[in-house]
């Protein structure tokens, strides 16, 4: 089968007026499984529905694969197969504004670029994952001890700052104004300059999370990150294989949470 995916014209839109295309046309060959007979589903996704309820008008717009289709996940974790005819998927933004989302997409794509070793952060929908992560309890320190006084101590005691992850991103992104329009070499230079900041370490960590989390969290679209690694996802049993395949790669087909027959090429 043709193992090519094209995430052409990924762009960010602010609902009413379509804004500029932010990414160059990109095509890559990757060990990607797509179901060519992908079942076409109604296009009104749970995301769109929720977005209307919330009266949010900001979206990331990603074109569907021209071959086969891609699997995207709604906010409730339900799978949405988008076939070629659907063309465009609107994913509502919950934390970033469109400009910030474009910057994060561009920066994450330099941390984990699409290149000869396979697709990268943009193709895996990392920005969607980070947007949801920051909008949720982890972005606002819902599970962190935040009682004052905030004092600095020895580094072994861990992060003692007051700023939440969401605040660190907001502040950090101000320093990346115009970043997404730079040539990649300039982008790399800009990231090298902030390499030792907390913002960058969060961005790097979240890029990896968005690449390799279960697709229910918005990233790892179509289990693309797992396919790069040969990680099979949540497989119920390895009983017959765990003490075999010594010294050789054992790479079962990927499965995902909430998956159902037809999600993969099995």
């Amino acid at each position, binding site marked *: 089968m043709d193992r090519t995916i094209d995430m052409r014209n990924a762009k960010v839109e602010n609902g009413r007026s379509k804004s500029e295309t932010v990414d160059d046309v990109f095509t890559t060959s990757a060990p990607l499984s797509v179901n060519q007979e992908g079942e076409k589903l109604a296009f009104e996704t749970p995301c769109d529905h929720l977005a209307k309820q919330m009266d949010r008008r900001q979206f990331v717009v990603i074109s569907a694969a021209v071959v086969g289709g891609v699997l995207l996940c709604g906010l409730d974790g339900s799978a949405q197969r988008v076939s070629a005819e659907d063309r465009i998927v609107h994913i509502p933004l919950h934390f970033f504004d469109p400009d910030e989302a474009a910057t994060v997409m561009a920066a994450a794509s330099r941390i984990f670029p699409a290149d000869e070793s396979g697709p990268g952060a943009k193709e895996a929908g990392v920005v969607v994952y980070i947007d949801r992560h920051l909008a949720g309890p982890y972005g606002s320190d819902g599970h962190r001890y935040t009682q004052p006084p905030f004092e600095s101590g020895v580094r072994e005691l861990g992060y003692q700052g007051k700023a939440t992850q969401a605040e660190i991103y907001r502040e950090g992104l101000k320093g990346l104004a115009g970043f997404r329009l730079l040539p990649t070499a300039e982008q790399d230079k800009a990231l090298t300059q902030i390499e030792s900041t907390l913002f960058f370490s969060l961005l790097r960590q979240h890029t990896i999370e968005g690449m390799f989390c279960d697709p229910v969290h918005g990233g790892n679209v179509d289990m693309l990150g797992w396919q790069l690694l040969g990680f099979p996802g949540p497989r119920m049993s390895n009983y017959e294989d765990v003490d075999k395949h010594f010294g050789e*790669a054992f790479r079962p087909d990927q499965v995902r949470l909430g998956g159902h027959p037809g999600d993969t090429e099995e």
Partner: protein
Amino acid sequence: MKTLPSVDVVIVGGGWTGLLMAKELGSRTTASVVVLERGGPRKTTDYFNTMDELENYVRLRMIQDFSSETVTLRHNDRQKALPLRQAGTFLPGVGTGGAGEHWGAVCDRMSPDSFELLSKTVEKYGSKRLPEDHAIQDWGVTYDEIEPFYSRVEKLIGASGKAGNINGTKIEGGNVFEGWRSSEYPLPPTKIPYFSALFDDTTKKLGYHPYPSPAATLSAPYVNPDGIARPGCTYCGFCERYGCMIGAKAQPTNTLMPVIAKHKNVSVRNGAWVRRVVFDKTGRNAKSRGVTYVDSGQEFFQPADLVVLASWTLNNTRLLLLSGVGEPYNASTETGTVGRNLTHQVSFSPVLAFFEKPLNRFMGSGAAGVLIGDFSGHVLDHAELPFIRGGTLQAPSHGYGPLGSFGAVPNSVETKWGSAWKKTAIHYYDRAGRLAFQGEHLAYKGNFMDLDPTYTDRNGDPLLRMTLDWRDNDRRMADFAIAKSIEIVRAMGATDFTPSRGLESYDARVYQSSHLQGGTIMGKSPETSVVNPYLQHWQLSNLFILGGSTFPQSSSARPTLAMLALTCRTADAIVDRYLKAPGLLAGS
């Protein structure tokens, strides 16, 4: 505050030890028993859809919510302690089953001399080999006394392993350095994945004595003496930090709760956050009267004839300090007992090794692996070594997902992002393996717990303050483990490796283990311990304390099996002796 109807027994904490005590009392007596658990209910079916690495491994869904309560830490009493604002070095459990739900389920026994560490070390080397500021103590029980209880809990959980010493006869293939066992493991060892098998082969060739990790994860279907049936492990790899969706990993919810549910005299009350032990301060006849707790903002007093604290090392200690039960330990005067002998474990990864061939690391279970006991404290000859005691070295295969493992590259790759890093990280993703060392952490006079003067929990109660740092004995033991590990991974055929930098200051950012111990330690004298060898409070005879908080110092074994064995011993003493004639079960 609302006063509730009195019960015979109140148990604080619904984890391994609290629920084991509840099961024993519920099935062997008619006593009314209430378990107070501050987290929510959990059951096996909750885990059907939780093979989610982000939620469990990264976001720590199973772990205590640090926004409600944490601890503060300082390395010594000249530093100001600051709160651990996010989980890192250890992972306390919450909810029914506690940390017993997300544990790795390696269930090794402690070596016999661990229980008499002070006397055996002095006997072997003289007291001059003890670190100057040590606080090592004997436990007040011996291995021979505990062995029957070890055997009993191995049958309870369906331990899978290979004996190395049955009644004194050494058996090749098991841990030939272990203490005597009265019987073989209930089940054969779990399967051995490739990385661990490679370690097994290599260490055998090097003259060491590898053995399969004892596992509380079933190698085959099993029915325990309570009639509880559980299936064998499928090696899905979503194990430590996860609840087991099929119940192959022994957890309080699948091993104890089904029994407890059959006994109407026991109830588990979720959402009950215990704040104080209530007691009458009347000298020799002092008695606890029950506990107070808060549930959804409302305060309750639960009176009880017998109070059992089973709420993990840190919270057991904190409850005594908050309640004013016993005298807090004072490190400068070396008086008082509550909070003394805080130990963790010298648990770290001595080396990260890279291999040519893929390892298929996604397959495994929390307890699948191979260990060697050749570097254990009772095996090493320390005559020429710059430290005492030791630990076990393990090649674990607990199942690895990309969020926990992606990004490990040899030191020659200098960047941590971008194309070159990505390409190398993808290549090595399934070609990297870590050894794990787990060593004894000796007790020191300067490592202890008390109440923090500044920070409070969500109820406004002071947080527990840990004063904890490594000493030279720990650091030298770690350096020894690193040197030996490098020899071993080289012999395993590693093409490259990154050794650990060793122990510097205690680092709360890095996960080490959840094996914190001490604070309400057991011993032979009320001058130097909080509870007697039956885990009964020296002053309040109707107060019992269960779990790692009663361990005078850490051994190199994982503490869970010893906690369960000691809980069974205490349960027998309560059922057979205390309930018939309440009073102190042991003299000093």
